[in-house]
């Protein structure tokens, strides 16, 4: 059943992909039939896969029946033994549920959202292919297979961001996502090499058993001796940073919003970007033995949380706001892992998967209604026209802001409490950054709601005339996700991070006795427990003041802090800095090598020069052939004279 659940999306992707290659010409009816078939196949496959995932979850996580399915051997070379195997424990089971359920909902939603697109089968094939790779990633039994899934989701992400390949901005965004991820993946690959060097294996089980013995080993890097596990973990974390868009390698995520909205919901909110968090949790037995690596994870996570939240407050594109919000929430998950509260991180990953997908799909619904308008400055006052979407956006935002009893309340609280409970300097830093970010989160969430749905409409009349509620096929997935955003936190709390946690996770996550942040979290003082809720409410209140009751104030504030605002609005100038530091020099070097190095030097002396010389020679040689007999005889006699002379001079 595990195998079926993992491979169903692949089969669906292949079938739908084959349909994408079928040329229908101008036959509209045939195309519609083909589109529908592709939709049925992929949605059917995913729904079935999701049902299997729930059954597997019941068996594995609740029944405590972790297992590994061996498929077949992949690489056998010396001491390197890698096989295709599906390792399913509680961690994987949770991920499988998140991936398949969200993916199934996105598939169904796409039927409505992409109904006017000419390339439906291709889109559905990509979505299913992505899901397969994601499942491969989370079920990996060894690091190489995980890398396979890791690269696979990167590929699908690239294909989907650039899905509308006629749009130059979409292509640029796709390339940017791919290139930035390459930096992270390089780190990941180096991390795998380091692990293999230390443990002589890439199989998770073998590594985990050997970790305590290697805990104090050092390895030599560039001549210096370093703590081996720290080096390995930091390198692996670079990979996680790339995929999960953490500070420094985050620049691709907002641009990735060029892709169709269902893609943003599935890949750039709920699943792929959480792969980094999953990886850190999966490798908890490694990270646990490196204090330095854990501290780095905490600091990066905390910084990303606040950094992205500030930017989200100044953006006007509805999808970009949510994208930065995703970035910020991923920061929460990471610093949870950094203080060894892996289960809290995964808990937030799950709840976030539901409400962020909900928010994205809701935003998609708004965009759909507004005739593909994404700029919030051109929206407003449409809550009466699309009431269901409006209500669902409220649910999603409440969950995101961490308001009781929505899912985000449970997961975000436990993370912040764990950060406080770690009683370390880095934990404290993360705690306060997290509180600040929580305030901003609530603020920008309501900024979105108020700018989009309330007040006077700023859209032009033609657009307004067309505003309509989305079809049922789009609303039903939203409602399912909203149910998740409502109840996932309450239901999961006890098992994931509460008293049943140890039993629930089994051996999937390792936490050393010296790292009991999660335990301490449950004994946090009153103010720690209720501060996140308090700042959340405060943030909402501020948003109401600024954008509902006194709409003139934001402009005044912006005027007061103009330099700071410009700095944040321009995303802390990360893109510009990278452009200056890496992109421009790379282009400069590339252009130089191309124009002077390749064009002038190599082509000039090589192919072009040679062919010119060749043609010239050919002309001269052809002129020798005069057609006169006596010339020919002369050549023969001359030839023999040359030969005999040569013999006398050389041969004799």
């Amino acid at each position, binding site marked *: 059943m595990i195998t079926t659940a993992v491979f169903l999306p692949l089969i669906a992707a292949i079938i739908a992909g084959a349909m994408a290659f079928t040329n229908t010409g101008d036959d509209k009816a045939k195309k519609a039939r083909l589109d529908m078939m592709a939709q049925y196949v992929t949605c059917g496959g995913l729904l079935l896969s999701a049902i299997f995932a729930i059954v597997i979850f019941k068996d594995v996580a609740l029944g405590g029946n972790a297992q590994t399915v061996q498929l077949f051997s992949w690489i056998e070379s010396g001491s390197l033994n890698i096989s295709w195997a599906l390792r399913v424990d509680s961690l994987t089971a949770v991920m499988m549920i998140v991936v398949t359920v969200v993916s199934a909902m996105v598939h169904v939603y796409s039927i409505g959202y992409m109904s006017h697109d000419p390339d439906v089968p291709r889109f559905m094939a990509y979505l299913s292919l992505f899901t397969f790779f994601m499942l491969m990633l989370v079920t990996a039994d060894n690091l190489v297979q995980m890398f396979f899934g890791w690269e696979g989701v990167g590929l699908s992400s690239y294909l989907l961001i650039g899905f509308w390949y006629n749009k130059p901005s979409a292509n640029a965004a796709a390339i940017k996502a791919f290139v930035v991820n390459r930096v992270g993946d390089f780190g990941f690959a180096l991390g795998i090499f380091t692990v293999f060097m230390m443990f002589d294996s890439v199989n998770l089980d073998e590594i985990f058993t050997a970790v305590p013995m290697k805990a104090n080993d050092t390895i030599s890097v560039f001549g210096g001796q370093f703590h081996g596990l720290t080096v390995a973990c930091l390198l692996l974390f670079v990979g996680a940073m790339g995929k999960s868009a953490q500070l420094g390698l985050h620049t691709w995520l907002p641009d990735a919003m060029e892709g169709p909205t269902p893609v943003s919901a599935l890949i750039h909110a709920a699943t792929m970007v959480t792969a980094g968090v999953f990886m850190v949790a999966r490798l908890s037995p490694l990270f646990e033995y490196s204090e330095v690596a854990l501290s780095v994870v905490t600091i990066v996570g905390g910084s990303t949380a606040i950094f992205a939240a500030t930017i989200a407050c100044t953006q006007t594109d509805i999808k970009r706001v949510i994208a930065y919000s995703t970035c910020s929430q991923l920061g929460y998950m990471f610093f949870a892992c950094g203080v060894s509260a892996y289960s809290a991180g995964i808990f937030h990953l799950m709840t976030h998967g539901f409400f962020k997908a909900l928010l994205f799909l809701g935003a998609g619904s708004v965009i759909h209604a507004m005739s593909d308008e994404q700029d919030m400055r051109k929206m407003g006052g449409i809550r009466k026209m699309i009431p269901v979407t409006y209500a669902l956006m409220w649910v999603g935002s409440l969950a995101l802001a961490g308001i009781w009893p929505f899912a985000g309340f449970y997961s975000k609280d436990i993370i912040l409490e764990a950060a406080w409970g770690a009683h370390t300097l880095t934990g404290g830093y993360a705690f306060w950054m997290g509180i600040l970010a929580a305030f901003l989160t609530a603020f920008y969430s309501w900024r979105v709601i108020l700018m989009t749905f309330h007040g006077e409409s700023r859209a032009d009349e033609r657009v307004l005339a067309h505003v309509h509620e989305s079809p049922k096929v789009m609303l039903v997935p939203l409602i399912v996700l909203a149910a998740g955003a409502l109840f996932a936190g309450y239901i999961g709390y006890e098992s994931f991070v509460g008293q049943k946690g140890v039993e629930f996770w089994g051996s999937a996550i390792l936490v050393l006795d010296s790292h009991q942040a999660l335990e301490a979290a449950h004994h946090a003082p009153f103010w720690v427990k209720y501060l996140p809720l308090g700042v959340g409410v405060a943030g909402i209140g501020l948003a109401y003041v600024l954008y509902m009751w006194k709409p003139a104030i934001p402009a005044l504030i912006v005027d007061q802090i103009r330099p700071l605002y410009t700095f944040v609005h321009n995303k802390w100038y990360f893109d510009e800095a990278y452009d200056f530091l890496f992109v421009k020099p790379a282009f400069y070097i590339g252009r130089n090598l191309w124009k002077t190095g390749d064009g002038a030097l190599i082509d000039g002396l090589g192919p072009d020069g040679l062919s010119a010389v*060749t043609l010239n020679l*050919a002309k001269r040689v052809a002129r020798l*052939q005069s057609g006169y*007999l006596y010339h*020919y005889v002369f050549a023969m006699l001359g*030839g023999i004279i040359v*030969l005999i002379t*040569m013999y006398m001079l050389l041969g004799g």
Partner: protein
Amino acid sequence: MTEIPNMVPVIPEIFVAVIGMALLMLGVFQKAADDATEVKTAHLVSRLGMISLVLTMMLVATVAGSTFNTFSGMFVSDPFAVYFKILILFASALTLAISHNYMENQGIARFEYTVLVIFATLGMMIMISASNLMSLYLGLEMQSLSLYVIATFNRDDERSTEAGLKYFVLGAVASGMLLYGSSLVYGFSGTTDFQMLGNMFDGDHAPDASLGLIVGIVFILAGLSFKVSAVPFHMWTPDVYEGAPTPVTAFFSVGPKIAAIALFIRVMVGPFGDLVQHWQQIIVLISVASMLLGAFAAINQTNIKRMMAYSSIGHVGYALIGLVVANEAGVRGIMIYMAVYLFMNIGAFACILTMRRAGRMVEKISDLSGLSKTHPMVAAALAIFMFSMAGIPPLAGFFSKLYIFFAAVESGFFALAIIGVLSSVVGAFYYLRIIKVVYFDPPDETLDTPIDRNLGYVIFGTALIVVLFFAFPGIIIDGASAAAAAMFTK
């Protein structure tokens, strides 16, 4: 008291001679006044000629395996000779197969053509089996005289007669050189027998070779170079190839060339094998010059037959690398090379023979444009032959070059191998240009369809051999290995 020589090894030659004469008689007595019967007779003779050539091939095969010396050492039949004779017979039979339709269309379908081809074949067989300078000359002249005539076979066409005349005059000069060389060799050594010449220079005596003898060898070498059209004795080739009727050109490019290469090996490796350091440099020069000229001069050609002439000069240059190496691997390389060359060339010429517009033959390279639309199969076959000639794997032409270059590198002739590879890069240009014209240039006027059935068979068969060589290389390579080994066991 002279004893009767052993006739058994000569049976194939005797058979060919008898058949040639019988067909001549048949033609003469069948000859009637009107054109229709003349064509019919020509057709019949051509068919019979083809059948008897195939029968000869079987006869040749029966004497394969061992070495016979007969006619007082004038004639030798060894695996080397058998291998080359079979190639020659293939060349002649395939030539007859692709000729008839052309001859009929040009209004020159006469039975003499077949008879001349058969006599030329006989001459070549004698050349290959010659083991005395006298029998060498005998075979060579018999072949050449027949070829002079068929070069002018379209005697109402100026270009054809011009080609024949040029070939004749230049051929006579070359024959003169060969004879002069032979007389020098005889004068300085006292014998014309290969065996005895070989013994004379055996081992320690090699440095004793006198200057006069070496000059004689150089003259012989020049005469043979003319026959294989190696630079600088190649000048006749483009003009004759262009002027002669196309099937004749096809025959020229394979039959006589293969026979002359065989003779080249026979003479240089046999009696003068121990003098290798004396003539090696000369062959290097000829080989390099041929490769380079073949590569460069072909680029500017617009007539496809002229282009093929330069291409054949280049191919001879490659083959001669094997002779420079002058060991078993080298000779084996030449033998494989010539076998592959035979099939590629006949195939390519068969494709050229399909180029007909409104009943008239056309032979400009640009006339091939759009061939892929009108004759997709022929276009594909032509592409295969061109790719093979350019030496693109996995086609036969790649492997034949590979064996040659491999032999050269193994014996330390790196410079030669490098020049060979580089000139085949230049050569690739004009081969690939044909493919470009065939597949990518818009057609101005379409060529006639359908093509002659015999041509179709030949094209299909040769293309199949070129394509499948890599799968079943054993047939050719084993034969070549055995034959090359025979050359080096004394």
